[in-house]
């Protein structure tokens, strides 16, 4: 049983009581909602004649269904339009703050809350989206929930939960040039497996994470769930505080000093006890690419597609399924695999630093013939910032489409979709069968810089050769 970790401290501070089942009733400091997983929750509230207990602790935006080209209303897709109207009505009826398209602050829910300073250390954060783990980058306990639980948070600002175990995932050392936060988390998932984290919160510790920017830490925490861990976090430090200082919802004036003091106290104690500890070395990590149909099926760019017979028995069946679906043979180098579509964006890699890294590679080059490539900023603010820096012009000159903020092709609930058996190089988080909108479409996950490298060469390429 863990003791003295940030997770233990935040859990204790938010515990309302113990339910008759033995589970903890946990207070949720920040609740984020969007158009996909909330309409049924509001319907259940109405059916039961319940109100929203803390409307000021819920914040809404729209991201999954938003078209990234024309955003004129009503949307061309009547189902998407109906979802949009439902969210608008629900927010108005219950007094919930809503960052709508055109507000200047709309975007992917896991991009807008951090950039507005809503996400803060020591909070519990829930959202009907599995990538809520992103917010753990600030030293928050943040996790995804389903719609019935969205209902519970709306009605009571609490959830019935069992406490997780805590695994310290330590990475030490300096990442080599061309190796990014995305490669670190793909490497960790590859090593610990897609179910390795079930039942655990991951504490990302060690010098590699300490040296990362907040946006890099968000990329890592974002994909905790792909390793099975419902939440992942980094202890808050000077990097966290500097990121938050002055943001819209960050504490101001005298409260700022109090906040920094409190946040600092929440850090895991030097003698904290963990349920498990694993250690990796940063120098061992290469630019990493997935070859299969789970985020754990990743390899270094210089490696070949692994051979099923050499894997643990429980991974062999899904490996065989992956060879067939991906049409990639064991033993083939992943480098040189031709791609059709290149996507930079998503809650994993749609922040300003991601776009800057991508633009560095795109500058002075051009998307290869026959390749569709597009860049989707994670929020309206990211878009504005990128345009102020001229990144949009770099991308457009290089043959990329420059879009509006949204989830886009990460999950294809909007017009951005793969067609037929197209294969994408994608900076998103999931390579599941059919994930990007075609039931036979294929996804190769990689860092934004690697996506651009693939776009300009037409094939999976080691970005280090272009830097």
């Amino acid at each position, binding site marked *: 049983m863990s003791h003295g970790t940030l997770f233990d401290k935040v859990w204790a501070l938010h515990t309302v009581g113990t339910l008759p089942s033995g589970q903890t009733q946990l207070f949720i400091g920040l609740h984020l909602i969007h158009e996909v997983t909330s309409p049924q929750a509001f319907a259940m509230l109405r059916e039961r004649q319940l109100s929203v207990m803390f409307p000021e602790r819920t914040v809404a935006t729209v991201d999954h269904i938003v078209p990234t080209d024309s955003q004129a209303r009503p949307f061309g897709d009547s189902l998407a339009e109906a979802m949009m109207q439902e969210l608008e009505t629900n927010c108005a009826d219950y007094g919930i703050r809503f960052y709508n398209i055109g507000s200047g602050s709309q975007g992917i829910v896991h991009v807008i809350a951090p950039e507005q300073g809503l996400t803060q250390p020591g909070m519990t954060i829930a959202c009907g989206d599995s990538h809520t783990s992103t917010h753990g980058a600030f030293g928050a306990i943040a*996790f995804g929930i389903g719609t019935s639980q969205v209902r519970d948070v709306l009605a009571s600002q609490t959830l019935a939960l069992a406490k997780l175990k805590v695994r310290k995932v330590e990475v030490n050392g300096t990442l080599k040039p061309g190796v990014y936060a995305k490669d670190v988390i793909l490497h960790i998932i590859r090593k610990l497996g897609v179910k390795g984290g079930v039942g655990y919160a991951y504490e990302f510790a060690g010098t590699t994470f300490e040296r990362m920017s907040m946006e890099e830490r968000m990329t890592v925490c974002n994909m905790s*769930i792909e390793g099975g861990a419902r939440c992942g976090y980094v202890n808050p430090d000077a990097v966290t505080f500097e990121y938050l200082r002055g943001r819209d919802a*960050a504490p101001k004036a005298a409260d700022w000093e109090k906040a920094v003091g409190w946040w600092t106290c929440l850090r895991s104690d030097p003698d904290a006890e963990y349920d498990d500890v694993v250690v990796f070395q940063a120098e061992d990590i290469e630019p990493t690419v997935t070859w299969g149909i789970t985020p754990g099926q990743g390899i270094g760019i210089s490696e070949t597609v692994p051979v099923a017979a050499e894997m643990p028995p429980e991974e062999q*069946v899904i490996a065989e399924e992956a060879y067939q679906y991906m049409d990639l043979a064991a033993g083939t180098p992943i480098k040189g695999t031709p791609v059709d579509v290149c996507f930079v964006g998503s809650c994993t890699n749609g922040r300003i630093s991601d776009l800057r890294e991508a633009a560095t590679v795109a500058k002075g080059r051009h998307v290869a013939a026959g390749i569709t490539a597009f860049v989707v900023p994670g929020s309206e603010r990211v878009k504005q910032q990128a345009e102020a820096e001229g990144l949009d012009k770099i991308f457009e000159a290089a043959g990329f489409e420059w879009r509006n903020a949204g989830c886009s092709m990460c999950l294809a609930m909007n017009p951005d979709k793969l067609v037929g058996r197209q294969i994408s190089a994608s900076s998103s988080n999931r390579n599941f069968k059919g994930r990007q909108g075609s039931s036979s479409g294929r996804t190769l996950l990689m860092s934004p810089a690697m996506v651009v490298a693939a776009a300009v060469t037409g094939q999976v390429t080691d970005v280090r050769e272009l830097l």
Partner: protein
Amino acid sequence: MTSTVTTLTGRGIPLTGNDIDTDRIIPARFLKCVTFDGLGAHAFEDDRIQRQGEHPFDQPQYQGAEVLVVNRNFGCGSSREHAPQAIAKWGIKALIGESFAEIFFGNCVAMGIPCLTASEADVKALQGAIATNPQRTVTVDLTTMTATCDDLSIPLHMGDGPRQMFLSGSWDATGQLVAQADQIRTTAANLPYTRWSA
């Protein structure tokens, strides 16, 4: 409002494979909805199309089954409750598997659908027994924590918290949670960040 879940008896349906994610259970295009109605027809839609009638959810011998038996890390990926809703609306009332992804498991609890785990060997034995004789029923007993099918009886596991929620009929937690309004307000007031000015 909720009822106890102690024992369930129904025909079984085996669905083999590890790491079956929620995008496969219900592809994202079916999430464009404001109710969960009608999702049952689309459970595993793309997998079913690909297997051209050979997917267990299409095979005649499993129509009307109520106990879904799966393998490792079932329901990983997206938090979409649409996934367990689709399975439940197809007719499933309980799941047995080697392991379940955490959010999927939590969603099922909140819906009153128990997800029980068993060893790899026991799950495979149960899947085999059902495939051999799909007309036999499977009984899932949360009081004795066993599943029986003919002469096969396997031990089941579930955390104490969720198990008590099923046995006591408190799996729909909303009422219990809301009843603690005073305690909730006290907890909130004691958190420093609820008092800071932004």
